[in-house]
């Protein structure tokens, strides 16, 4: 009897950990084990299939010598910086505007937010044809009588990257707005009223008090947007297919094509490692600070 009860208590003690164990094991294997596997692959001469012939840093040297990778790096730099800045500016502006007791806020909010529910493939399809010179915007304007109107960015190697920015901003800026709006609604009105009594103008109110108080929202927005930017694969595939030529190649499309279609798995793996390191440089400090804060 005593041993039975003993066993049951011991089981109760271990049960929580047993319940968590499968998830933890799966995470260790499928996330950290896989990361390790890809890192190891990036130092091997793998082509079509994984092969464990050690080649040192050769893949990384080859990678950074490739014009396609340099295009990808340049593109992600342009795309990520414009995407993050424009989304933040539009999101903040819409949130502040919506916070002025706007009639019809309940109508506007879902309109701003719904693109977030769509797949990037859907977004890409819609914008691909809307921006197509033959049938889309250029054609529309010409039909409406603006004969000389020209808009061919999506077919232009130098400008195509900006159409990706446009579509991506369309998709996520409403979401950023919602994050800022939640932040604004959390600000104590007494602080603002006190500042107004001290004679602060609206502009000063926002610049000196409100925007600094939104710091956490800015940080979350930055983390989420940079994460989305580096992962951007679907949108590029659907909107430009990496073209015209290879003009809109990004690290995510580069990794995919080198690994699975060009049979350069070693180089593909090394590009994935670079992507992971970039994200980790942003995420690890953020997550560390978040978890530490919550512990205290």
């Amino acid at each position, binding site marked *: 009897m005593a041993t039975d009860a003993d066993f049951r208590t011991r089981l*109760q003690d271990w*049960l*929580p*950990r047993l*319940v968590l164990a*499968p*998830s*933890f094991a*799966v*995470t*260790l294997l*499928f*996330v950290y084990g*896989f990361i390790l*596997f*890809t890192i190891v692959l990036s130092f091997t001469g793998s082509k079509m299939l*994984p092969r464990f012939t050690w080649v040192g840093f050769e893949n990384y040297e080859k990678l950074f010598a490739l014009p396609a990778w340099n295009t990808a790096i340049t593109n992600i730099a342009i795309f990520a910086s414009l995407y993050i800045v424009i989304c933040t500016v*539009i999101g903040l502006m*819409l949130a502040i*505007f919506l916070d002025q007791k*706007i009639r019809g806020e309940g109508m*506007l909010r879902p*309109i*701003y*937010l*719904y693109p977030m*529910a*769509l*797949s990037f*493939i*859907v*977004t890409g*399809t*819609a914008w691909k*044809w*809307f921006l197509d010179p033959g049938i889309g915007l250029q*054609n*529309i304007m010409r039909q*409406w009588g603006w004969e000389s109107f020209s808009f061919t960015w999506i077919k232009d190697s130098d400008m195509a990257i900006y159409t990706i920015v446009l579509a991506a901003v*369309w998709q996520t800026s409403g979401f950023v707005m*919602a994050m800022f709006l*939640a932040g604004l*609604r959390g600000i104590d*009105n007494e602080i603002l009223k006190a500042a107004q009594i001290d004679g602060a103008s*609206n502009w000063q*109110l926002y610049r000196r008090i409100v925007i600094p108080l939104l710091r956490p929202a800015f940080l979350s927005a930055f983390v989420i947007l940079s994460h989305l930017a580096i992962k951007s694969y679907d949108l590029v595939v*659907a909107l430009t297919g990496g073209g015209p030529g290879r003009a809109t190649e990004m*690290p995510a499309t580069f*990794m*995919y094509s080198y*690994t699975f279609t060009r049979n350069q798995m070693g180089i593909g*793996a090394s*590009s994935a490692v670079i*992507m*992971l390191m970039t*994200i980790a440089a942003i995420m690890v400090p953020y*997550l*560390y600070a978040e*978890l530490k804060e*919550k512990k205290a």
Partner: protein
Amino acid sequence: MSAASQDTAVSTGRVTRAFLYLVLLLFALFYLLPLYVMGINSVKPLAEITGGNMMALPSTWTLDPWRSAWSTAQIGVEPTGLKPYFLNSILMVVPAVVISTIVGALNGYVLTKWRFRGDTWVFGLMLFSCFIPFQIVLIPMAVVLGKLGLAGSVSGLVLVHVVYGIGFTTLYFRNYYASFPTELVRAAMIDGAGFFRIFWRILLPVSGPIAVVSVIWQFTNIWNDFLFGVSFGGTSQPMTVALNNLVQSSTGVKEYNVHFAGAILAALPTLIVYIVAGRYFVRGLMAGSVKG
């Protein structure tokens, strides 16, 4: 979101207000534009798109593009329409969402109410997995799915989405349960209630709001996924991959109207979820994040 902070202390003049409304309306048009373009061009004959104006309403209304996109359009090599892929997506999404939400709820329960040494580390490691670029796991995942005999199957995709979804669902439930009074759990323990009974009788009944968040989040992410679908879908590709194949197909005439109808079909499930339950999503998210 307390009622008191709803109204802002900032007062604005007439001209400023007119300007605010103008800007807000212009942005509303910007966000609605692609939906309008997709909608009206999916009910037009192709000739009206190629020979006419994309913004104009159809002069002949037709549902043929929808019929074609659903059941006869050429996807890859087969003229099957999007129907079989829509079914693949449903078969993939439903189990993946259910499993990852249940697992996330149990994990969140353990991590907040049955804390043990090093639990923050366990959680941190799981949380980081939400933010990795999936390119880093594509190659080993392809190898493992091949070894398990799950490559190119819906079950394989379910596995992948559960594995990379539990980080998020655990995060949501953990944050939500953290604000649930631990004293109630303690009291139940003293009364002799076990691990599962406490979960079932005390925590589960109050989990509605966060379960909605978890389900919406997982449903949207998994339905909209393209990378895993195109990498591991094989012959069981999901809707997003099929839509991309339809639109990018280089053979024959580009049937824009069919593409638009297909795009709306691919967007419909997540749009409906968003329209029906979007409010609860924001509300539940806030309930969870008030106290982390």
